[in-house]
């Protein structure tokens, strides 16, 4: 941004441009201040207060944070969220790339396949959650029926603390379609000559993928993994619908977001909930920065 001194040096034309520009972006400026920055700072303040919603906030210093880290439910919400993100994000990337590569191999009926893979990702999340809830039902559900066809006995899924998170991860793969479309667009931009040259050099398919395709689409992978990670840390709707907001069984699906919501709207502890929100924010920022750092050398930006 221009400093005060530089502002005076602006030519008349530049100043007119500045005013016009700021007028055009004013909706964003208002939204940024009113719905982003102010609430952002306020929630930091609330996180240091005791704040039952109907009273005014009282300063209690770091007490909320200290209590959180001795709160067994909060610790398990961290674990559950980490568990979910650790499996759902890489698996989503893997299947997303795999399906996109399949579709990139000159298949017939392209729009049909694409529709099949993509449609679930624009389906209302609540609808998805309700359907999968019924599919996972151990007594009448279709998933354990399919498992029984190969002679095995399916687990209790969402009724079993061990299997509830794997169930959610499996369900999350149903929504991989957006990533497929993005990866496919990226794959179609990989220059044909590069692939053909590697074939002439005798590279087999796996080498081609390892040394040509993946590096060429690596910026898109990074983008998808980061947005996927941010989404996974805020994973909420499915669990809220499937467990009625409880994170059952035995808190095994109690995500950070679910516990945050409970603190705010079931226990009305706004200060405590704000502290949780800030921990979530710090975790997201830290992971985003780490992802950018770690990927720095691995990602190929086409000479830019």
């Amino acid at each position, binding site marked *: *941004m*221009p400093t005060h001194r*530089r502002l005076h040096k602006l030519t008349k034309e*530049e100043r007119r*441009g500045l005013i*016009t520009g700021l*007028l*055009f*972006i004013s*909706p*964003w400026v*208002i939204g*940024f201040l009113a*719905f*982003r920055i102010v*609430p*952002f700072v306020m*929630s930091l303040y*609330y996180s240091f207060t005791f704040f039952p*919603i109907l009273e005014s906030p009282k300063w209690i210093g770091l007490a909320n944070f200290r209590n959180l880290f001795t709160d067994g439910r909060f610790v398990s919400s961290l674990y559950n969220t980490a568990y979910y993100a650790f499996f759902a994000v890489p698996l989503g990337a893997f299947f997303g790339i795999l*399906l996109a590569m*399949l*579709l990139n191999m000159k298949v017939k009926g392209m729009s049909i*396949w694409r*529709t*099949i*893979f*993509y*449609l*679930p990702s*624009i389906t209302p*999340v*609540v*609808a*998805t959650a*309700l*359907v999968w*809830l*019924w*599919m996972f*039902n151990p*007594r*009448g559900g*279709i998933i354990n029926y*399919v498992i029984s066809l190969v002679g095995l006995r399916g687990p209790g899924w969402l009724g079993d603390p061990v299997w509830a998170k794997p169930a959610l991860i499996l369900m999350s793969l149903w929504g991989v379609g957006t990533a497929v*479309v*993005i990866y*496919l*667009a990226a794959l179609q931009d990989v220059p044909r000559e590069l692939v053909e040259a590697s*074939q*002439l050099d005798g590279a087999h398919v796996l080498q081609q993928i390892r040394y040509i395709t993946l590096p060429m689409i690596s910026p*898109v992978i990074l*983008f998808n993994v980061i947005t996927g990670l941010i989404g996974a*840390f805020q994973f*909420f709707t499915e669990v*809220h*619908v499937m467990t009625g907001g409880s994170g059952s069984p035995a808190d095994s699906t109690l995500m950070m977001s679910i516990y945050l919501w409970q603190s705010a709207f079931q226990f009305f502890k*706004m200060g405590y*909930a704000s502290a949780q929100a800030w921990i979530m*924010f710090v975790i997201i920022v830290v992971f985003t920065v780490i992802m950018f750092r770690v990927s720095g050398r691995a990602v190929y930006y086409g000479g830019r």
Partner: protein
Amino acid sequence: MASQTSVITLSQGSKHRQTARHRLTIGIQEFAKYLALVLFSAFFILPWVWMISTSLKNPQELAVWPPIWIPHPPRWDNYVQAFAQAEFARFFLNTLKIALPSVIGALISNALVAYGFSRVRWPGRDTVFAIVLATMILPGFVTFIPLYIVFHRLGWINTYAPLVVPVFLANPFFVFLLRQFFMGLPTELSDAARVDGASELGTFWMVILPLAKPALAVVALFQFIGSWNDYFGPLIYLSDKSLYTVSLGIANMRGSYGFNNYAWIMAATVMSIVPIIVLFFFAQRTFIEGIALTGLKG
């Protein structure tokens, strides 16, 4: 796709053998490719089949093991019941009352802001745009408590204002998408308009917006879907059942009816998805191009 162009200069005899073997390899590859696609598709299609099948069952059929695929006779009455019992018509109307103004708000605000970030030259523009992008990682969970308290004080709880008003103040993701598109339009067009004496707003309205229809369609579509599918917003801001949206309404059915009436819930679920499916089939290309646009140019 592999090795179609390989192996040309060989003696006649081995060339015959080579092409035969070549064809066989290609055949196996083709077969494997389609087999993989079919297997993956089964995973993606199964929930749809199960959803529709369940929505047509009677209560006895719900509990039968092994599960019934095709209910006989299909119980269409479930749809009628779900529609009547769950006040579905009202949920639909409520959701439209949120989604349609949101679409208008998203179109106006994001187009203006994106124009300011792409077609107007001003000092500091790119720095400010970097801030816009940075706010994308700010999780909604960090800001919702203060927002809730402010909306509470404003008396906006149990109204649609908290769901609609913020949409009129631009969204970083849509700004990014539209800015990308605007930057691709030739500058000569705006220059010509300016020479003809058009104001900046006039150029925006009469020259740029008509050209940006494809990108605006993407914004409208995504905003509509976003509003239609939203759960968290309605969940925290609406407590009066007569204001519920479709998503909130069907989620609530699970609590009220439980597993015994899962056929109704599935019927309601199918109905909640129909508008999205219809939209998808009318605007398939817009969807696909829009998504590719968002992921690629980052």
